[in-house]
């Protein structure tokens, strides 16, 4: 009987697995963001790619805005708009808060092209300007098979337009967050180090109590307010008590650790990543 249930359970699990696999297989995967120019069709030569890459890199260093080019064979079964928004939601081009990223997406076999404009640049590059760049710059070149020329000229146009937009040079808005995070990190690390040490000597309950006393004392020394440090001490007590369970292999995934600081330009070396910019579907699509 039990084996029967086990078998059917196994069957259900396998079916579920296949179901999820199928769901994922239906859509075109989003390539990893490694460089500013990603060509999955080998349309551009290595020379052309590195030239574009260098130009875009120089522009990003000067202005801060991130422009990237992606050439894929096809976006089927999705429309180019749907695929494009998935790509930029994953890549997060442009700086956080400035939202100044642009994606130039070419679906070569579909004969479709899209310029996806970040929220912060929708003023500098309205939809109809993006549409004109596609119909007047890209389509004519693409029709003649000159993909590099079309992309290159479009990128030049986009850089011109972006240069006209007044963007803040480098956002320094993360300081308050950082200091709070630092003190939190200090608290946690302090609890772990002191708590683990004292618990091993005094036992779990007394160890936690002693840790709470020490942490509370230190925070009283730093903060100067008794109420707050009592609060910190209680938190330390609880934290030290539950700590062994936390690190027992059943840790929750740290949803808060990533995302909010998704920034960090990899401009100093070869690795490259998006800065956390947001998109809301601005831009235009066209064909040739």
């Amino acid at each position: 009987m039990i084996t029967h249930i086990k078998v059917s359970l196994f069957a259900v699990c396998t079916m579920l697995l296949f179901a999820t696999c199928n769901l994922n297989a239906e859509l075109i995967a989003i390539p990893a963001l490694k460089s500013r120019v990603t060509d999955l069709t080998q349309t551009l030569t290595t020379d052309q790619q590195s030239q574009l890459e260098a130009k875009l890199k120089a522009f990003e260093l000067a202005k801060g805005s991130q422009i990237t080019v992606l050439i894929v064979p096809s976006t089927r079964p999705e429309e180019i708009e749907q695929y494009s928004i998935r790509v930029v939601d994953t890549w997060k081009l442009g700086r956080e808060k400035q939202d100044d990223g642009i994606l130039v997406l070419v679906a070569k076999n579909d004969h479709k092209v899209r310029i996806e404009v970040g929220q912060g640049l929708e003023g500098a590059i309205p939809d109809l300007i993006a549409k004109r760049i596609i119909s007047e710059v890209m389509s004519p070149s693409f029709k003649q098979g000159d993909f590099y020329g079309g992309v290159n000229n479009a990128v030049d146009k986009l850089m011109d337009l972006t240069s006209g937009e007044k963007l803040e040079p480098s956002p320094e808005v993360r300081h308050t967050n950082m200091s709070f995070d630092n003190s939190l990190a200090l608290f946690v690390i302090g609890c772990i180090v002191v708590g683990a040490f004292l618990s091993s000597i005094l036992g779990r309950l007394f160890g936690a109590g002693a840790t709470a006393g020490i942490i509370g004392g230190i925070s009283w020394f730093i903060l100067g307010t008794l109420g707050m440090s009592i609060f910190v001490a209680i938190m330390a007590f609880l934290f030290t008590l539950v700590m062994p369970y936390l690190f027992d292999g059943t840790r929750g995934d740290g949803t808060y650790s990533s995302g909010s600081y998704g920034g960090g330009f990899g401009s100093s070396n070869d690795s490259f990543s998006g800065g956390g910019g947001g998109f809301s579907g601005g831009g235009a699509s066209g064909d040739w």
Partner: protein
Amino acid sequence: MQKIYFKLFVVLLLLSLSGCGYNNFQSLDEESKASWSEVLNQYQRRADLVPNLVNVVKGYAEHEKDVLTQVADARSKVGSMQVTPEVLNDPEAFAKFQAAQGQLTSALSRLMAVSENYPNLKADQGFRDLQAQLEGTENRITVARNRYIETIKVYNTAIRSFPQNLTAMMFGYKTKPSFTVENEKAISIAPTVDFGYKK
């Protein structure tokens, strides 16, 4: 000494509140309101485009009165609707809103289809710009709607799963309506292909 007990009590209360999802509801509720505002914002953007579009098309295709009046009617219906964040708590009003916007969507797509028949209109730069803007706006609406659906999914799941549903019941948080496919009926009916072989 009593003060400390009181503080301890407050801390425990706070912890229990965040433990049972109350704080989570707050942020999810705000998030869903924000994404709803974005949806409204983009619909408004489209409604603002319509008068110009109708004017340009009228200049070239005057005898397409049917389609033009349909667009104008749908536009005025959308414009007359009172849309407040409270619509989110009223599934009926939400359905009405969706129906009105859907009507404008189909009227506009008919207008665009009709305009294909007028080469002069298609060549007009003003019309092409408006067309680009309309396309862009429709795309933004799609994106905003999808994001709204995503946030509502998280919100509704949070509200309905145990034990947060107890908190939700206590504080009167209800599930919010989400967008559905507009032409559900039209999709489910197979199209009839008629080659004119009728006897």
